[in-house]
């Protein structure tokens, strides 16, 4: 049974009671929530995610409730709990959905050490995973959404989750967080894009979420082999340049984007070096998304081993 099989009213009722229990990629979660504005957005954005059976335990048990006191009513605020831990200051009730996503991110990067976690957007085509590690503002989520529009499968907008033993990418196809102009970029690219409510005044500016495709959610148990490691950087008004980088530089840059490399010790070293070993490694500077998407599509059209030569030629032509 999927969350979307329930009505919005049923979801709201369950959230205020025993909670909604979902499988989200490799994680089982339970969400209890009393904030009225959260339920419709959650129902929309997580509609394709499977609900847990009664005998399946939830790994992350998230509760959100109003504080005691005046902020229960005036400039209404909300508290976020993971079990009995409250990791964040109270946040405005109007931003319940983005704060749920950020809180869920925190649950993963602060608690998960059975996998290597890289801060990255990840998509898949023909069995090959494209990992795009990058800092906020680099354009990775916009590229991710654009590639999905072109038929790539969403693996994650936030984490490359790498298996420690097999080095494969484990999907967690949650909603894609779009910020500021990227919301309109994606709407213009795809008028049927299923984008949830827009939240104007978050700490990251204007934010909305793109609902993952049903296919991505249904294939959340299908892992992918890393094939390309691309470090994107959006530069307004710049041209497009996709250039190969050497593997040691790629390792060092990906290492900077890991949440738990050091905690994993030798397993982290083995997992990250295996990712770099398997991947063609590139830096992508772009000002025009369409050209960037074309270049990434070209990457996927050739076997990974052939990429370096082809792109080196392309880079010299463009540069």
């Amino acid at each position, binding site marked *: 049974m999927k969350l979307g099989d329930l009505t919005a009213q049923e979801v709201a009722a369950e959230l205020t009671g025993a909670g909604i229990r979902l499988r989200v990629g490799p994680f089982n979660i339970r969400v209890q929530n009393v904030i009225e504005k959260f339920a419709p957005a959650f129902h929309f954005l997580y509609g394709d995610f499977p609900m847990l059976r009664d005998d399946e335990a939830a790994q992350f048990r998230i509760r959100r409730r109003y504080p005691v006191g005046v902020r229960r009513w005036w400039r209404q605020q909300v508290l976020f709990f993971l079990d009995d831990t409250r990791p964040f200051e109270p946040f405005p009730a109007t931003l319940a959905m983005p704060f749920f996503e950020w809180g869920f991110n925190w649950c993963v990067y602060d608690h998960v050490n059975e996998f290597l976690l890289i801060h990255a957007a990840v998509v898949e085509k023909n069995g090959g995973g494209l990992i795009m590690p990058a800092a906020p503002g680099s354009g990775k989520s916009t590229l991710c959404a654009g590639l999905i529009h072109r038929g790539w499968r969403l693996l994650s907008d936030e984490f490359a989750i790498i298996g420690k033993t097999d080095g494969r990418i484990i999907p967690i196809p949650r909603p894609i967080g779009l910020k500021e102009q990227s919301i309109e970029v994606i709407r213009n690219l795809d008028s049927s894009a299923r984008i949830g409510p827009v939240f104007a005044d978050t700490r990251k500016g204007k934010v909305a979420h793109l609902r993952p495709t049903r296919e991505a959610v249904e294939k959340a148990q299908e892992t992918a082999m890393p094939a390309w490691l691309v470090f994107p950087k959006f530069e307004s008004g710049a041209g497009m340049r996709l250039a190969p980088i*050497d*593997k*040691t530089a790629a390792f060092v840059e990906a*290492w900077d984007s890991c949440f738990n490399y050091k905690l994993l*010790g*030798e397993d982290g*070293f083995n997992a990250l070096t295996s990712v770099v070993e398997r991947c063609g490694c590139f830096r992508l500077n772009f000002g025009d998304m369409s050209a960037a998407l074309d270049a990434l599509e070209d990457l996927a059209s050739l076997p990974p081993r052939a990429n370096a030569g082809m792109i080196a030629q392309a880079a010299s032509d463009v540069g």
Partner: protein
Amino acid sequence: MGNDERRWTVASPSPLRWRSWDDEFLVFNTASGETHHLNLIAATVLQRLEQDPATVADLMGEIRSASVDMPGLEQLPALLETLDELGLITPIDP
């Protein structure tokens, strides 16, 4: 004993894990949990010291006799101090 006569060895009996691409090397120190990015001469020296202790003169002689063009060889004493500071090697005869 002068500094150049000291023998150096790896700092820990725990194994080092290596990965190299082209002439650049990554080494994971299983004792400290640290990962280091080394150039060719640093990796050559460290791999040599994994086998047996050696002095600066031993290392220079071996590298020169191998007829290897090794940039940075003249800075070998400073390199050994750096590897010591990183916790990768240690002098046997302080």
